[in-house]
């Protein structure tokens, strides 16, 4: 007898119930049926419960007058506003806190993450202590601490603490001056934007030329020297003027500062540039350090703190001097000073030419409260503060993991190519680390946004507080309110992961 070989694989013989395909179908049908039964049971119960409580359902309440106050809102809000407006106010308040928090947390987190990898024992220990303390304490507790123990414990309005730049802090939050730009100031704003775009364009163009030819174009190099001198003049003059007027008052301090700064600026285009940079570093560092150390260790005598500041500034100046002597020739250097000059000087010129004024409405203490200025409520300040500090600890860990994930061989390879430390980080390590850092970083941003809902506990009117709290209690439409709130977060989350997937597709390693 011959067997018929049709070339097709016959399914292995199994009884009907042991066939994996059949089994899979049966399992799925069972699960689906159970789920449908469960959901209809829930819906039935809910309908019965709602009927028993004489409650109606539907989204018609959105067009009813809300009738409650919202303490902090970017959009116009009054008691006569509708519920859908409350919904929008909640979303904007959530987004406001989230965006500010994300920017601040990223800056703090990257700083601490890099500090944790520092070879300096004290710096890395400080970063480690920060991360381990902050990460292991609940965010809600930290918010309570900032809100109830710090901001609510501030003095009453009459005894407000005065901060620099006409800001005040008291129980009711932080009062800051409100900028009141006039008509002409619009041109300055336009100029700033245009100059920023122009500066970036010049930078990109110059870098392209350098990539192609090996050196920056001659015009840029020349302009760069000019920019260098101007920036040196400005910064040097500011530092020296402060030094000679505020720290060690000298007769005609401003004039002397101007002359010295001009001399340094002139030297910065000659071959004495390293010395000029050293002197300037010393002046700037000394002014900053003198203020900082004097303020932090006020129990030391000013002579000691000044001497310490001078010593540290001297070391920093010597480091800058040494680096400056080893700098590449000027046609191989990125013209950073020129770009700074463009962004700062042209708007300043327009400000001066058009006679625009940027006045500030300073908060003034009246009988019961401050008038004028912008009032940042303590709930807002506490939430931004808490979210920033908490998320920065997680971002720092993400950054550290990302940088450590780059193979040591990459560092060694970059060194053997002769790249300097800065170029090695910028061109080899960071691009590879970013690929590892970005995805968890985004999920930290998402976490921060979700965690902003804890503002509900300290009375910041964000989405959950306004909508799943007040609106829900007033209307009794629990299902609708919670559904809408969840939908907002779901949309944000899906949007983020869509962007993330696109990014991952772009940067992932192309392998065989």
């Amino acid at each position, binding site marked *: 007898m011959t067997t018929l070989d049709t070339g097709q694989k016959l399914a292995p013989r199994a009884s009907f119930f042991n066939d994996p395909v059949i089994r899979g179908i049966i*399992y*799925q049908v069972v699960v689906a049926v159970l789920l449908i039964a469960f959901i209809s049971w829930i819906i039935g*119960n809910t309908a019965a419960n709602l009927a028993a409580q004489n409650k109606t359902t539907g989204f018609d309440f959105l067009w009813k007058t809300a009738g409650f106050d919202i303490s902090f809102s970017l959009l116009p809000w009054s008691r006569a506003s509708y519920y859908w407006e409350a919904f929008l106010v909640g979303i904007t308040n959530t987004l406001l806190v989230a965006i500010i928090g994300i920017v601040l947390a990223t800056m703090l987190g990257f700083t601490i993450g890099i500090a944790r990898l520092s070879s*300096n024992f004290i710096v890395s220990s400080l970063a480690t202590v920060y991360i381990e303390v902050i990460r292991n*304490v609940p965010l809600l507790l930290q918010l309570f601490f900032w809100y109830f123990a710090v901001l609510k414990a501030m003095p009453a309005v009459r005894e407000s603490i005065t901060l620099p730049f006409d800001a005040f802090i008291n129980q009711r939050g932080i009062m800051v001056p409100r900028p009141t730009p006039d008509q002409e100031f619009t041109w300055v704003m336009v100029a700033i934007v245009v100059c920023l775009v122009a500066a970036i364009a010049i930078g990109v163009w110059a870098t392209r030329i350098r990539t192609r030819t090996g050196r920056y174009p001659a015009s840029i190099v020349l302009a760069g020297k000019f920019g260098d001198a101007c920036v040196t003049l400005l910064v040097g003059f500011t530092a020296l003027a402060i030094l000679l007027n505020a720290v060690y008052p000298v007769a005609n301090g401003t004039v002397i500062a101007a002359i010295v700064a001009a001399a340094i600026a002139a030297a910065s285009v000659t071959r004495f540039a390293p010395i000029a940079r050293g002197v300037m570093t010393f002046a700037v560092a000394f002014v900053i350090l003198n203020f900082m150390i004097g303020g932090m260790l006020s129990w030391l005598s000013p002579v000691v703190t000044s001497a310490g500041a001078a010593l540290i500034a001297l070391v920093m100046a010597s480091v800058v001097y040494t680096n400056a002597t080893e700098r590449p020739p000027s046609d191989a250097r990125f013209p950073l000073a020129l770009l700074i000059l463009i962004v700062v000087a042209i708007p300043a010129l327009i400000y001066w030419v058009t006679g625009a004024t940027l006045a500030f409405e300073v908060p003034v203490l009246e009988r019961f409260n401050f008038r004028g200025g912008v009032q940042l409520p303590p709930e807002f300040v506490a939430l931004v503060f808490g979210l920033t500090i908490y998320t920065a600890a997680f971002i720092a860990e993400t950054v550290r993991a990302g940088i450590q994930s780059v193979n040591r061989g990459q560092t060694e390879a970059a060194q053997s190519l002769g790249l300097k430390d800065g170029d090695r980080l910028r061109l080899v390590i960071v691009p590879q680390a970013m690929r590892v850092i970005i995805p968890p970083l985004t999920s930290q941003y998402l976490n921060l946004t*979700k965690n902003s809902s804890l503002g509900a506990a300290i009375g910041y009117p964000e989405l*959950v507080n306004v909508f799943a709290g007040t609106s829900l209690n007033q209307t009794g439409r629990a299902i609708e309110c919670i559904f809408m*709130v969840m939908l907002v977060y779901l949309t944000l989350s899906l949007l983020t992961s869509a962007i993330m997937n696109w990014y991952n597709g772009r940067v992932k390693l192309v392998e065989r």
Partner: protein
Amino acid sequence: MTDIGFVRSAMTDARPAPRRTSGVGAWLRKNLFATPSDAVLTVLGVIFLLWVVPPLFNFLFGHAVGPNGTVEECRMPEAGACWAYISSEMEFFIYGFYDIPQHWRPNIVFALGALLLVPLMIPKAPFKRVNAVLFLFVYPIVSYILLAGGVFGLTPIPTEKWGGLLVTLIISVVGITLSFPLGIILALGRQSKMPVIKTLCVAFIELIRAVPLITILFMASIMLPLFMPQGMTVDKLLRALVGVTLFTSAYMAEVVRGGLQAIPRGQYEAAASLGLSYWKQMYFIILPQALKHVIPGIVNNAIALFKDTSLVYIVGMKDLLEAVKTKNDTALEWQSANTATTGYIFAAMVFWVFCFGMSRYSMYMERRLNTGYKR
């Protein structure tokens, strides 16, 4: 003989001995003063420490009022932390409004928990299986009977009276132990080839992970009673437990999925070729390897859950944070400038000890289990 110019005729001078690479001096040089910039950072760091540490030390210890102090000392203008407040309210922070004569019951629960958990965590301790069964199945029942009462002549104590650290620990332990198996099932479901089950699991996981815990808790506390048949009430603690468990299980599922994806295909195929059923493949071959990979992730979730238990405060539960806040706001006999700060610092220290302990334990386990992969 021709002069071969490039061959040395004299010995070179001996090089100077290398710098010491051990000892205090070398350590200082390497870690604090490697370069001038490093030295500047070190000095600035020391200045920062000098600025921060003395006031902090004075607040916490130097000028603080000890546990036996009085409120008058706490109200002195220069007084630091008021530890007397903490020690006098400690009972409330641990048990909440739990009947004071019945405090022995939570105490037994705490002791039993420690007694069962510690040998479970020490790798060398024997009787792991018995221990685990006792901890996971017997202990919860015993604890519930002890805490709630109502049988064996124990006075019934409603869950509304439970509070403080007791509730924090109950929610986190129950949340972690229940969300772990639930997370594994969800992760396996997500990997499943059956479209209905896969879609369900994916939808559940992504939905839960996209929204904040608060909204889940709101949902559990407001909508769960609506979902139940009429006349059936759901205990408030149970509502919080359901919310927290569902929330954490979605995160657990993602962690476990990471572990499952790290297992090479060959392992699945080998398991299948042994003729094992699906659940046996998972139980004997896949999960033991997968879970080992993701211990850090699991513990991170446990830590996150432990911290997140504080959120039940928002839906009106009485956990440790609520107890501290209540006393801060209402204990008029302890009112002073630093009372609230001290209360929050105390709560932070309790949370910190638990979370830090968990993270260190996970690092220890990771090192222990990592032996096979060490290079």
